[in-house]
């Protein structure tokens, strides 16, 4: 059948729109996974056992099963219990929770490695345990794990392609739409790959800048 890249310009607007949705879903899920990760880490370390133990189980299940399977559970499971969320929201929740669990693992280790004296000093000057965590310990821990969290966010971008399977019109599904109209899978998947690659490079660039800023402020 051969290759013919001249079909691309006619469908470039669909693919570019898909690109914007991919960026939107990545940013939304990244924010959810970042704050969710902090929240999960605090629960995993400080919540009473009755919350902590079921939570550990949840964490273990999310780390031991594929994201695609989790997306099916969230998307179809929510419908089953009567919550009819748009695919985009289900996708953000699925991606966000999945990576929140991975971020939480990083943040837990970081919280435990913050010097004990920080908590003691904060308590001595009159902060409550919650305040000390929120204002003194957690900010230091989060700063220490920004680089590996950045790697997780880049992995999140690539895994955002999976939400095409539950029908979110992001980059991958947009490419599939264009393929449906042209029967040119190779050209459009390569195009999609190129867009992902460029977004990926931009994220790496931002990551390097943030890391440099953190290094400077130390």
């Amino acid at each position: 059948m051969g290759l013919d890249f001249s079909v691309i310009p006619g469908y470039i607007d669909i693919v570019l729109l898909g690109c914007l949705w991919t960026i939107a879903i990545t940013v939304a899920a990244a924010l959810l996974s970042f704050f969710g990760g902090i929240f999960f880490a605090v629960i995993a370390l400080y919540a009473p056992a009755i919350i902590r133990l079921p939570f550990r189980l949840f964490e273990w299940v999310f780390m031991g099963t594929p994201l695609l399977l989790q997306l099916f559970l969230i998307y179809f499971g929510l419908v089953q219990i009567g919550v009819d969320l748009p695919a985009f929201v289900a996708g953000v929740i699925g991606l966000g929770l999945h990576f929140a669990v991975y971020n939480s693992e990083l943040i837990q280790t970081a919280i435990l490695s913050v010097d004990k004296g920080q908590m003691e000093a904060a308590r001595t000057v009159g902060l409550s345990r919650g305040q000390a965590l929120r204002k003194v310990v957690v900010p230091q821990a989060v700063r220490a794990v920004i680089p590996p969290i950045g790697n997780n966010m880049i992995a999140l971008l690539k895994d955002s392609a999976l939400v095409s399977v539950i029908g979110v019109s992001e980059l991958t599904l947009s490419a599939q739409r264009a393929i449906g109209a042209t029967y040119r899978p190779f050209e459009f998947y390569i195009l999609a790959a190129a867009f992902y690659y460029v977004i990926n490079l931009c994220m790496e660039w931002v990551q390097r800048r943030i890391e440099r800023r953190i290094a400077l402020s130390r």
Partner: protein
Amino acid sequence: MDTDLMLRVYPFFLQAAGTTILLSVLTALLGLACGTLGAAARLSRFALARFLGAAYVSFFRGTPALIQLFILYFGGPQIGIQLDAFEAGVIGLGINAGAYMTETIRGAIISIDKGQREAARTLGLSRWQAMYKIILPQAARLMVRPLGVNLNMLIKATALVAAISVVELTYTAQRYIGSTYKPFEMFLLAGILYMIIIYATGRAVAWLDRKVQIV
């Protein structure tokens, strides 16, 4: 929870788990081969090989595995590559995993003290002998654990081939979710099987890691 239904369909899930395991083993072997070649290229003294190695890692780690799979399976026939879904799954995922393993293997090799190589060369070993007899045996010990992490990711990544209709665990779960409207039960069945596979692999890697340590 509908346990009757779960009991009725679990044999299909077991069969699908067999496919997931076969897929994982073949992908891991291909990944290891690609990773070894990739690391050799990235550490080569020839600039062209280094460039090709770096380009391989950069492309396959910089784009989604799902897209790579689609390019191979749906786009392949346009450039004369006809593969069935299972073959495309193994080859696509294997080449993808190889890019991650390249970095793991290369990382282990470059973390071996330079003096080892210099000493070996001074004693009259050739470049190849120094690598094969002195550096690799030491680096191999460092690789086991990070390769185990690659393996864990790879097993979960085999779920992607559900998107090209290979009947493995995730595809089976998806199909039964569609036909029974019991997402939670089906997730539980598939999830338990995935966790057994991943747990067993993790234990095997930990055993191997203990086995290869000198002290």
